[in-house]
């Protein structure tokens, strides 16, 4: 939006699972410093796209370029080390570890000494507002806190690009407003973000640019205003969803 440098380029990517085409010829450009929104009904292929960017599985066709490196064939851990962090739609906590230890596992990537990683993790938890829960084990957290813990864990790897998969799911409106606030703070700290979200108000407020997926295909892209007035988008997604008005 502000004409930042191209950070991530998803180039004509297709993913097939057996006979099912989950993502079909999708291209997405993400510039340095932007928040890019990814919306679409359930099953539109948003999470599949995230999984390909994060290296969970390779695309069937197409290229993904991150800072001039082709990453579509790299495994997760290498992509993480290049600077792409993520959270999961269905949370994946280390349930036997505390919130602090969970965050430390992320921090250890850049701070191999335990004391350093602990300090980094404490800073992040402060930032996210989870420090009062730092000694609670993952198994006894509720869903909103687990989502925040995953965010803390991902931030602790000091990513350049952060993939947020429905971090607001299950939050009440006031907690949701807090999350919007710290996503903006994360952006201000220089992290580029791609966000999948069903809370329309959040995505419209946060995003510089929105991509709309429907049944694996990209049906629209542009500024929040452009996208929300696009007849195709209204027909296939916005119009038939009750929670749009939120």
């Amino acid at each position: 939006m502000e004409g930042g440098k191209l950070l991530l380029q998803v180039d004509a990517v297709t993913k097939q699972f057996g006979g099912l085409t989950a993502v079909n010829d999708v291209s997405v450009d993400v510039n340095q410093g932007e928040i890019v929104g990814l919306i679409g009904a359930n099953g539109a292929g948003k999470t599949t796209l995230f999984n390909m960017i994060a290296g969970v599985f390779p695309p069937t066709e197409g290229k993904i370029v991150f800072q001039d490196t082709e990453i579509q064939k790299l495994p997760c851990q290498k992509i993480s080390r290049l600077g792409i962090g993520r959270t999961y739609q269905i949370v994946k906590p280390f349930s036997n570890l505390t919130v602090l230890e969970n965050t430390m596992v992320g921090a250890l990537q850049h701070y191999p000494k335990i004391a350093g990683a602990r300090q980094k993790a404490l800073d992040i938890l402060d930032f996210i507002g989870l420090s009062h829960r730092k000694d609670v084990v993952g198994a006894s957290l509720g869903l909103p806190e687990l989502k925040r813990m995953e965010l803390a864990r991902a931030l602790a790897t000091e990513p350049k690009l952060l993939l947020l998969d429905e971090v607001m799911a299950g939050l009440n409106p006031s907690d949701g407003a807090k999350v919007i606030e710290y996503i903006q703070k994360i952006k201000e700290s220089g992290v580029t973000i791609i966000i999948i979200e069903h809370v329309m108000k959040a995505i419209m407020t946060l995003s510089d640019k929105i991509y709309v997926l429907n049944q694996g295909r990209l049906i629209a892209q542009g500024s929040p205003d452009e996208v929300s007035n696009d007849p195709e988008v209204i027909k296939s997604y916005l119009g038939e969803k009750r929670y749009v008005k939120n």
Partner: protein
Amino acid sequence: MNVKKAALCAGIVLATALIPLFVTNNLAMQYIINMLIFAYFATAWNIIGGYAGQLALGNGVYVGIGAYVSTILFAYEGITPWIGMLAGGVIAALLALIIGSITFRLSGSYFALATVAMLHIIRLTFLSNNYMFGYHTKGALGISLPWRGNSIINMQFEEKAGYFYIILALLVAAGAFSYRIKTSKMGYYLQAINTNPEAASSLGVNVMGMKLKASMISAFMTAVGGSFYVQFLNVLDPSRILGYDMSVQILLFAIIGGKGTLWGPIIASLIMTPLQDVLRGIVGASISGLAQAIYGLVLMLFIYFLPAGLWPAIIKLYNKIVAKIRARAPANAGE
């Protein structure tokens, strides 16, 4: 580790080191050494099975590798078991690398089954071949170690105390090493892999590499113990050393003691090994099968009442008591 804890550990080790001064009965010493050996094996298993959470059912393979390598070198080449021990450890670690590269591609119960298969393949290979790598390993008969005289170099002693001090040193080293791993980057990574490998890799953890590393460390330690064990027993009996019982015992102790804890595997071995030895000696002689039945019953009680393991239960109890004392004297509360 804080100073208090370190002092406590040093105290326990020193007190244990005094045992041979008071215990002169040979059989009692044998039981005690057995306890320490299994505490050592369980500690080694805990690194792959506890920290990394990989249900490796065939760790006895590495006991066997350590035993065979040092015995062959000692009996046929006259090389001291101290070098044989290290050679066995290195070979076991390499074998773990090869086995791991194959089996870690499987997950959950498939991985566990593959490790059992590996154990049987290697046991049957040793049982059914009279010569292995050009050495006369005598198949199922096994190898008796030649007596080369009471000395540290030969790792052969007339008094049991000699063996006792070696296994005590090995156990202390293993415990310290295990503690170091647990409180390092590797320990955090292994525990992360244990609960959620996918999330771990998204944070930059090389899951396969870490599992292999843990498995190789565990195999090295186990093989070193295997070399010692066969020196202590004076005879290498493949159906015992490479037997399924051996592998199961090792992990059983780690599990009932508390998987992934430093002290659990040690404590459980200290209770279960003598129980087994004493039962076999006392009850086993009168009614056959009764010793095993009692032993099995005790195991069931442990698993039923302390599913998380003995050590976590002890810690819980300790914390409860501390909390009670603090509640009574709030003025003195402190770290």
